[in-house]
């Protein structure tokens, strides 16, 4: 019996298949309007990759925003639980996970057993991490990858203080239209910094403890992670595939359930 975890995010859907502790296959696809179909598509791809099919008997655990809207999972688990499990599997020393997703960021504290001790989501007006960065990239007409490079170049940064993603955007615009205009890289650095400072506020609310691991698509933005480390005052851990950690956690839970059923 194969343990399979699906993480249905607002932008991407991730699937991880486990076989006794090791990742058999993992897949990331863009989420469509229909979570059901995106889930099926992702699972199918993952199965093919692992040389399996729907006929093999599978135990599926789903997580992420869309976890409830799919029929093919035996169990649904909250993103926090899965993040904890996933990171604990890869980086057992981590006591804190900062997951920077598309819609929102979540900070999770783990106890010694790698279980969720506490967590915090963004307050009402500070949501939208990845999407925010995407829009900013579009606004600045800089490809997302370029953003992090640019921000690393900046000597100083523009102040972008608004917590509301949309108003931060108009702050960016007024930086663009300022006389003299603020240099691009400084604006980009400012954008990254504003995201980081929101995450810092979040982390401080539940208390920062080493080691800290970063996950989620935004974790790939090296410029942002650089600022984050500077603010934290120490280096952070980063798993190889930061986007799939929640899916991995779900798969691990699936495996645990399989074992439970066996015993």
């Amino acid at each position: 019996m194969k343990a399979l975890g699906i993480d249905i995010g607002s932008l991407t859907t991730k699937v991880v298949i486990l076989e006794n502790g090791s990742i058999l296959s993992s897949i990331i696809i863009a989420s469509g309007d229909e979570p059901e179909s995106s889930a099926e598509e992702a699972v199918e791809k993952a199965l093919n990759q692992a040389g399996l099919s729907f006929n093999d008997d599978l135990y599926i655990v789903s997580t992420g925003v869309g976890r409830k809207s799919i029929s093919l999972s035996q169990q649904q688990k909250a993103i926090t639980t899965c993040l904890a499990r996933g990171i604990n599997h890869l980086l057992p020393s981590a006591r804190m996970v900062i997951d920077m997703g598309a819609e929102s960021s979540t900070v999770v504290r783990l106890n010694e057993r790698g279980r969720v001790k506490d967590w915090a989501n963004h307050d009402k007006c500070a949501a939208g991490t990845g999407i925010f960065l995407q829009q900013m990239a579009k606004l600045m007409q800089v490809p997302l990858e370029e953003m992090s490079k640019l921000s690393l170049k900046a000597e100083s940064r523009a102040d972008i203080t608004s917590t509301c993603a949309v108003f931060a955007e108009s702050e960016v615009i007024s930086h663009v239209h300022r006389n003299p205009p603020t240099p691009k890289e400084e604006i980009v650095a400012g954008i990254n910094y504003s995201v980081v400072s929101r995450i810092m506020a979040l982390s401080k609310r539940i208390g920062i403890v080493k080691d800290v691991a970063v996950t989620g698509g935004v974790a790939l933005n090296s410029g942002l992670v650089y600022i984050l480390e500077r603010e934290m005052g120490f280096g952070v851990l980063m798993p190889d595939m930061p986007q799939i950690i929640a899916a991995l956690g779900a798969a691990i839970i699936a495996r645990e359930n399989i074992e439970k059923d066996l015993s």
Partner: protein
Amino acid sequence: MTEAVNTNKIKAIVSACRIISRMNRARPDVRKSEMLYYQMLNNYFTRLLNARQNGDFIAAHTVFFPAELIYAMDMVPMHTETTTWMISLFTGECTDILAAGAELGLASEICTPHRGLAGAFALGTLPRPDVMLWSNMVCDNTAKSGELIMEMTKCPGFFIDHPFKDSEDERKYLVGEMEDMVHFLEEKSHRKMDWSKLSEIVARMDRQIELVREINELRKAVPTPFHSQGFLELVSVDYLFPGQPEAIEYLETLRQELSDMVKEGKGAVPDERFRLMSLFIPPMYLMSFLEKISQEYRALSVVEPFFTYWGEGELDPGKPLESVAKKSYMLPEMRMYGPMDERALTSIVDCAKQYKVDGAIYYADVGCRHTCATIKLFKDVLNEIDVPVLTLDCDVVDPTATSEEEVREKLEQFFELLEDR
């Protein structure tokens, strides 16, 4: 502002109470206390509705204003915040009164109950009072909302300045404020303060507090006998009926019911899973939803340090005014709104231990700066004794603040966390 009174929303509260009572009568398993509770609400708002016709003297007042004095002068009290809450609770609808508040030019930073009640007066949802009474207990909003309402409804008003700390001088000052207020009321209403009646009320208030303490004792039982959102009954009974006979009747009935359940070892839900501490007030418009969730996950609120957990002390009918002043310092809420000293912090820890709570839910009403400013503080204190705290961003009355989906999502995460431990 407007004299046109449109009390449909209050009527809605009344009819809702009637319907609930009717439904309850049909239920064999219904708590008698619950029947009484809705009867009381029904009476409170019916009396308010008919006050004009009956030529009664309506005294509008903000939360934690000593309504004992109003009752003692035989006036009809109108608890402005609670009324706004109830509107939200029973109609699930307060967008228009909030919008009306905004149109007055009240910024969205002003907490919804106060923006709402200003709007409610503007729309004539609340009847025009004969006097507006308010105090700065507990926050800047309660301190400030009175004047605008006075100007809108063109009615006289009195502001009781409630000192911040608790000392001889400050109590003396508070009593002085109340004396002045009584003179003001006597002058405006041409009624005399009935001091003997006030003493009776104080005596009953003392009994009332005692009963709540006993009820809280019973709630320590595992499994806990009182249903999750039940504590709001206790809160509104104190807000609306301080020292009133019906309050005593309700509380005695409830205490009896609970002690019976405890004797039989019966819990409010079949095999309770999580015992929760509630910090601050849950969103009114999600009340039934939260009750449903607590049934679903068998997770109940067993203690609310700042809402049902009275401070030490007794009231002395011999010194009625002093007692009313003293009560304001014994209020559970006072621990939170006064100086945040050790007293407040230790009390939470004690509650957590005595009531064997598994976790605490912090309702972070985005409009309430007081409560939100202490989230971190309480989280740290409770985490020290290994009690996880869930912070739920919400608003007491504004349904646009949080949707059921958001709240369910967070609660499920929290219960998973508790499960995992």
